[in-house]
């Protein structure tokens, strides 16, 4: 895609700028859709209908109306807030989650930056979100926000360890940090996907990655930083209007980012499940998004089923359950790769 644009425009800076906006063309409609979808899923799980009126068919325009409302809202900055940090924080949070999209391969023909350490880059750049969350909680000058920020910092930092170890297992099998290369290695029928390789180690790695990624994106049962019944709204208690919308957008962007990584690492990314059938750049995009949305659905499903852990129990799960198991997986995969190849 980059080559195509370079041929057409002959301007490298312009091409890269354009390329940077391509994921936005997915993230924003995705967030609008996912919010509506989540409301519908939760409603149907709970014997309700959810939004039914706005836009006509099953309230499809509800989130669009909500966003328009948020844009029109008065921009309130609390008097006691640290103005600069308060304003900066939502952008930093969004930048962190959006930057991860640069290395996510949407299709065989499109990846924002096809760098050979793509996976490494995604792990590290998404940590930037923590800084933004801490900033938001601190700058709001509200004790509930501060609690939320502290919790989310502790949580995200702790759960990055099992995420990294689970990813390491895949890297040991593929021998590459390049997400496109990992995708190419899973080509063919669906049993070539890494989730079915080195059984049960990579399947275990998937479970650990998925659980830990729930914690990284603050979803139930790990939605402790914004635990509504305890902390009101956590770090975004004091945010309203467009700034709140931006934090919300980044949350959904994060949800898709971790789902995309999961589908790339374990479910063949843009590969068709049926070998050469239904393959190709456009079908690749379709498969990639479908797999990502399937993970999003599981995240929503869990959210509307499970209660929430307490903050110390969350740390227990992270350090004493997930990390030891991920070490076992890393050892197992390492042994398999080295000794039994």
């Amino acid at each position, binding site marked *: 895609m980059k080559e195509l644009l370079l041929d057409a425009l002959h301007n490298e800076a312009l091409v890269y700028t354009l390329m940077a906006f391509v994921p936005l063309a997915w993230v924003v409609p995705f967030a609008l859709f996912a919010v509506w979808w989540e409301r519908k899923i*939760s409603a149907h*799980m*709970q*014997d*309700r209908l959810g939004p039914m009126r706005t836009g006509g068919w099953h309230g499809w325009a509800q989130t669009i109306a909500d966003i328009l409302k948020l844009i029109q809202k008065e921009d309130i900055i609390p008097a006691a807030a640290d103005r600069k940090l308060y304003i900066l924080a939502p952008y930093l949070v969004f930048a962190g989650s959006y930057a991860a999209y640069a290395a996510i391969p949407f299709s065989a023909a499109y990846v924002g930056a096809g760098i050979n350490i793509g996976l490494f880059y995604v792990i590290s750049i998404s940590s930037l979100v923590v800084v933004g969350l801490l900033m938001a909680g601190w700058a709001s000058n509200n*004790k*509930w926000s501060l*609690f939320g920020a502290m919790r989310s910092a502790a949580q995200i930092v702790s759960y990055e360890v099992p995420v990294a170890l689970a990813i390491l297992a895949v890297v040991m099998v593929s021998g590459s940090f390049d997400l496109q290369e990992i995708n190419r290695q899973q080509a063919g029928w669906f049993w070539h996907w890494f989730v079915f390789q080195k059984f049960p180690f990579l399947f275990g790695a998937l479970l650990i990655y998925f659980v830990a990624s729930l914690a990284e994106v603050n979803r*139930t*049962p790990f*939605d*402790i930083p914004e*635990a*509504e*019944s*305890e*902390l*009101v709204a956590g770090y975004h208690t004091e945010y309203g209007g467009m700034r709140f919308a931006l934090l919300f957008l980044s949350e959904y962007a994060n949800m898709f980012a971790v789902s995309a990584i999961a589908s790339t690492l374990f479910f063949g990314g843009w590969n068709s499940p049926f070998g050469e059938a239904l393959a190709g750049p456009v079908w690749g995009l379709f498969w990639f998004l479908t797999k990502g949305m399937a993970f999003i659905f599981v995240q929503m499903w869990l959210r*509307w*089923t*499970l*209660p*929430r*852990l*307490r*903050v*110390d*129990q969350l740390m227990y799960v992270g350090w004493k359950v997930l990390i030891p198991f991920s070490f076992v997986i890393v050892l197992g995969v390492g042994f398999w790769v080295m000794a039994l190849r």
Partner: protein
Amino acid sequence: MEETMTQPPVTPVAPQATPQGPATVAGFARALKTEEMVISMGPQHPSTHGVLRLELVVDGEVVVDVIPHIGYLHRCFEKHCEHMTNYQQVIPYADRMDYVAAMSNELGYVVAAERLLKITVPERVEYIRVIMAEFSRIVSHLIAIGTYGMDIGAFTPFLYCMRDRERVLDIFEQTCGARLLYNYMWIGGLSHDVPANFAEKVNDFCRYFRPKIRELNDLLSYNKIFIKRTANVGVLPAAVALNYGVSGPVLRGSGVAWDLRKNDPYSVYGKLDFEIPVGKGLKGTVGDCWDRYMVRVHEMEQSVNIIEQAVAKLPPGDIAAAIPKRIRPEAGDIYARTETPKGELGYYIVADGTASPFRVKVKSPCFVNLSALPAMSRGAMIADIVAILGSIDIVLGEVDR
């Protein structure tokens, strides 16, 4: 005594700080100046169940002390009663105390007033009152359980509970036209007789509701995370519970089988067969949040049993036969207590021979149960405070009156 006095005074071992500063982790912690933070939870907070304000003294996430502040919903109920033109007019105000279980409040008041007036009401009225009071218990416990799930972070059980509650409210609506605040039980009788297909509707509900309790147990009660969050949290030992004078599911959760429907029967509860569920500490300690929660689940099952029996026994009769034309009790006083879903609700009525009460004092179970919150909460975490408060199941309308 002498010996201990003669012993040299024990001085605490002072940490040896190195000139360069603290080198160990413990030394570093001592060198950091830490202090407790006071944080205000409520009156505008998603899970204080109304306008309760809790002043939390916290050390990080650990709660050192809790100081409840009440009175945001004070509506001068007791003073209002003194200015009614007659005794019947108090009933709509009684509805508004524990507004999720209004029928139970009415029952307490009419039982007290009827004892004051020394009138007996027809059996049919008593049976209908019991059915309504037990429905009211189911409604109240459904709200308690549903909101408790929400406090713990599970949203879905709440809507399942609200769905089942709707069915009960439909029965109330068919009977007296109101869904929340009924003014249904009058002194000496009822405002309306039950509709023609009442028994059928009630039995339909009972058949529908029993599987729903099992569904609730699968979804929430025995959920691993839910048990982790509630078992061994906010333990209230039986002795402490009795000292605080708590009642209702909070007392029974601590393992004390005390229920006024059995221990001091009123209305026709003596003629009905049911059990008193108590906390047994199945998942943790006796008297923890899970026990209090589970007592409510089992009480709903018992209420369904009571309702089925009462409907089967419902005798014919005139529900308005005993309603007095003129209510003017002789000078005197009465204290009557009934078992509402929240606990022991007592009305103390002083009559001075006129048509309106001289004084009405209410002993509110929620108020008393709330007083045990600090004892349960010290040393817990912030998330536990929400769990403990939810397990007490307060309604601020009744705490403040």
